[in-house]
């Protein structure tokens, strides 16, 4: 819903023929810079920096300020703090540092799977190894085998928090900084507006809450994805492939974006003319990156086998069958030199993709879980559900990726990534509530797009982010993190002038078209529902026969809101790609302006 203009000759039509960004720069974010007063508080904070301050003075200040909020938020508890017997994500990450530093590499994916067995791809394991090695220099007892389980030494906490923040500052933050620079130039956005967008993106509450408070390393994976998108913007498609493999290698969840990466890279090899060498290069570099990613695991398996180190010292007797692809065993010689490698890789895949689990875990605000409230779909056979989820996911992610394939334009990347990730989040199998970070990331990057700080984009990006945080509230509440949740989300809404702190994002100057009222109505009702829900949760116990009532209500509202976000992203993608015949498009515009 870009700003409606009476003339069908919209400036963005230029972007179609002008893939080179220079021609776009003339339209230097005029709306933001020319205005007299900042439209929202974050702009006010950067107001003195307009024009005169170089970004090399501004950037360090921004990075320090967002770092302070991250570290201060990290003073609060983490998931599983003093919650025996299993503790939580924090213990999982710590345990992986323990097992990777203490055990031979061939045992990593086999070691005591009941206690937070390693179930992330190899790059996470290597990262854990590095962190564990560094941590052991400081205090070896933090990562001592077995005896360190469930450790909650306060200095260890400081160390763990530091690993998250350092990993983020090495990967996610540079990637976002570079992405915002390139993307805003591509869209002809002024440096100052780009700086505002950068702060807004880096203060995104959901990532801070999950990574720096609740504890995980999502920003590493997200950072690789942003780096991949940023390489696409720079036209370095091979690097894009490498970074994306790194993202996948860090966390399999990056698969949410895989189809978009594929669609864009393939599209860029086909349009405007077919370019076979490029396709081969991309395919080749992808394969090579995967090979490099797996290389330590393969070498480890081979050398451990040669040195007589068993990958499963706990099991005596013959080798157990492969957990997946059991048919393979007929063709392979279990005594051959390569068999440990096969076993290792199959086990890794088995751990990383838990096909045996249910359609959804806990309560997550996606389509299936919401549907389950109405129809008890969990009673249907698992196979049917898996197939249904596959079909629905494919149906939801096909449109954005077809668009991206046919119009592989750089400006469309965040929208296409966001739409695809929303599709995955809503319809795929085995979704966790934290996965909402994946669609939120590219959607928030839209703030750096042309007119990204305008009210309508801000309103929708803000809506998605606040709703996303809100659906994670039960998760955070469980470990007494309501306070950082409230502070960080309210701070972000305040900075961006969004409800509940301000309604200004819904009133365009002079404009009185009906879209803004519809948006206000829809968003308003969601914000009201969220507020009401918080009041109810605080004030009332759910009825005894429906103990999950509040969580279910959260899921229902969340799923509905996320569906709207999906629709909005898709609609905008279709409009911006100008893939529909122009006659339809003009008609649509006319309706809107009336």
């Amino acid at each position: 819903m870009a700003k409606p203009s009476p003339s069908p000759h919209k400036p963005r039509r230029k972007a179609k023929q002008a893939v080179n960004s220079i021609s776009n720069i003339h339209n230097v974010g005029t709306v933001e810079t020319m205005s007299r007063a900042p439209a929202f508080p974050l702009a006010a904070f950067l107001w003195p920096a307009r024009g005169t301050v170089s970004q090399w003075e501004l950037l360090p200040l921004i990075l320090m300020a967002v770092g302070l909020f991250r570290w201060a938020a990290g003073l609060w508890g983490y998931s599983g703090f003093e919650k025996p017997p299993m503790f939580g994500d924090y213990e999982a990450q710590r345990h992986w540092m323990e097992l990777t530093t203490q055990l031979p590499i061939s045992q990593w994916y086999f070691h005591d799977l009941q206690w937070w067995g390693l179930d992330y791809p190899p790059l996470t394991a290597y990262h854990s190894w590095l962190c564990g090695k560094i941590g052991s220099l400081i205090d070896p007892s933090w990562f001592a085998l077995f005896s360190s389980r469930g450790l909650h030494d306060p200095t260890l906490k400081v160390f763990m928090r530091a690993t998250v923040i350092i990993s983020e500052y090495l990967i996610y933050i540079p990637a976002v900084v570079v992405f915002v620079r390139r993307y805003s130039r591509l869209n002809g956005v002024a440096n100052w507006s780009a700086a505002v967008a950068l702060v807004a993106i880096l203060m995104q509450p959901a990532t801070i809450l999950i990574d720096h408070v609740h504890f995980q390393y999502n920003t590493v994976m997200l950072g690789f994805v942003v780096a991949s998108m940023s390489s696409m913007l720079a036209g370095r498609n091979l690097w894009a492939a490498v970074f994306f493999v790194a993202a996948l290698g860090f966390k399999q969840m990056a698969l949410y974006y895989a189809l978009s990466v594929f669609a864009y890279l393939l599209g860029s090899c086909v349009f405007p003319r077919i370019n076979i060498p490029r396709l081969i290069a991309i395919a080749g570099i992808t394969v090579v990156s995967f090979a490099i990613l797996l290389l330590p695991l393969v070498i480890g398996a081979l050398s451990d086998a040669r040195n007589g180190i068993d990958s499963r010292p706990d099991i005596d007797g013959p080798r157990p069958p492969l957990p997946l692809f059991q048919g393979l065993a007929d063709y392979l010689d279990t005594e051959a030199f390569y068999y440990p490698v096969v076993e290792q890789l199959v086990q890794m895949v088995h751990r990383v993709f838990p096909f045996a689990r249910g359609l959804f875990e806990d309560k997550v605000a996606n389509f299936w879980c919401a549907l389950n409230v109405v129809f008890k779909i969990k009673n249907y056979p698992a196979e049917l559900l898996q197939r249904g989820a596959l079909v629905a996911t494919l149906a939801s992610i096909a449109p954005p990726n077809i668009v991206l394939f046919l119009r592989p334009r750089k400006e469309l990347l965040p929208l296409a990534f966001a739409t695809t990730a929303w599709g995955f989040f809503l319809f795929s199998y085995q979704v966790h509530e934290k996965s909402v970070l994946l669609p939120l990331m590219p959607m928030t990057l839209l703030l750096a797009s042309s007119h990204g700080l305008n009210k309508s984009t801000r309103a929708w990006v803000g809506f998605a982010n606040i709703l996303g945080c809100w659906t994670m509230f039960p998760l955070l509440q469980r470990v007494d993190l309501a306070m950082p949740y409230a502070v960080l989300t309210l701070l972000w809404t305040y900075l961006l002038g969004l409800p509940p702190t301000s309604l200004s994002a819904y009133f365009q100057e002079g404009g009185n078209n009906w879209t803004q009222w519809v948006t206000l109505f829809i968003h308003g009702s969601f914000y009201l529902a969220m507020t009401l829900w918080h009041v109810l949760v605080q004030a009332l116990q759910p009825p005894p026969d429906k103990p999950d009532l509040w969580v279910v209500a959260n899921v229902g509202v969340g799923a509905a809101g996320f569906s709207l976000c999906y629709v909005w992203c898709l609609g905008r993608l279709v409009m911006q790609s100008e893939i529909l015949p122009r006659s339809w498009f003009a008609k649509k515009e006319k309706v809107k302006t009336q």
Partner: protein
Amino acid sequence: MSEIYPSLAQCAIVAGALKILLFPAYKSTDFEVHRNWLAITNSLPLWEWYYEKASEWTLDYPPFFAYFEWVMSQVAKLVDPAMLKVYNLEYDSWQTVYFQRFTVIISELLLVWALQMFIDSSHGASKRAAQAAAISILLSPGLFIIDHIHFQYNGAMYGILIASLVLARKKSTLLWSGLLFAALLCMKHIYLYLAPAYFVFLLRAYCLSPKSVFRIQFLNCVKLGAGIGAILGTAFGPFALKGQIPQIFSRLFPFSRGLCHAYWAPNVWAMYSFVDRVLIILAPRLGLSVKEGALQSVTRGLVGDTSFAVLPDVTPRVCFALTLIFQAIPLLKLFAQPTWDNFIGAVTLCGYASFLFGWHVHEKAILLVIIPFSLIALKDRRYLGAFRPLAVSGHVSLFPLLFTPAEFPLKTVYTVFWLILFLMAFDRLAPASSRARFFLFDRFSTLYITISIPLIVYCSLGHGIVFGKSYEFLPLMFTSSYSAIGVVGSWVGFMVVYFTS
């Protein structure tokens, strides 16, 4: 005139969010001190407040602060009554932490209000500078470290002080300025250090005629005298009726403490101690006699009761005399030209003198200098030149207050952020001076700031890596001696600026 962005309120909101996030941070014994005072004032009758000693943290602030605690305890009752039990020592339930931390943030609104008053009192071209100075005070790393992590209520106190300083700007509100300061003295007596400047200024500008020092404005004297009498009466009256004044004063002024505080405040005595330590090493070569008894205590470096091995000992009387002398010098000029700028300068210099030469000065007292100075630091570039080394050294000297690893990034990153932001902003905003700059002094301040970077790195990280746990006093001593050079340097610089402008 259009609004200046960001506004003070916007900064207060964002800073407030960060401060709430600091709730679980390290808190010093001052947290327990204030909890104990809540308990004392809430559960005991007035006349037992200054006698109660179940906790070692007895009530040692003047009565208005005790009343303030009493008011807060009325709310605390609703939050968690257990924190109000006098014998519930070291009690820190999460409700108590939330409550006490919140009261610091809420009471800091006083500071926001006073700073807004300061901005509103400036006009024309200086308004932008006033806003920058106000925001720098609001976001001061000193208040951030001392109030929101270490735990104290300085924000509210300095709010009252600034309000009083701003009221002195207009002739019509001069009386209120004096009365507000009297009330502040009855809350926290550390502000006695600044009282000489108030005394001289009110005497000259309010009690004596502006035309001649020999004409006394009797009505004004009566108003001021009666007002101060009423305030002191409210504060100390109830205790005076019971004859408790000597007891209160023994609590307020414990003279049994040593010259230097547990950590060395960066003042002249820190440099004196440093020289003494160097002389211990050099003594055999120079043929000086070393007092064996003092050697032990100095080696520990952390002791409250410092005695010197080579140099002569310092008595409270010497400190007192030096403080008074160096306070008196700027006051002579204030008496001759009682302008507001001179008044703020004199207040700052009184703060300097007492910080540099006082007995048992705590490093937190540096705010007594930094905060009044901030109000005039942007007057012109010469003022700023004197302010810069103070801003660096004063805040760096607070680092040893927080020693836990979790707070290390907070204090350093926040302080560096503040220094870069405001020294850059001030540099743009301060107008050129009409007088020639001091070539040497500018070089000094640049050199000083440059050296501070490796020193901070060494003291906070390098030392631990090289020496581990041994020689723990070394980084402390470096920090305080180095900071002392900065404070003394900026003091000398400001003295010159003050007397030549």
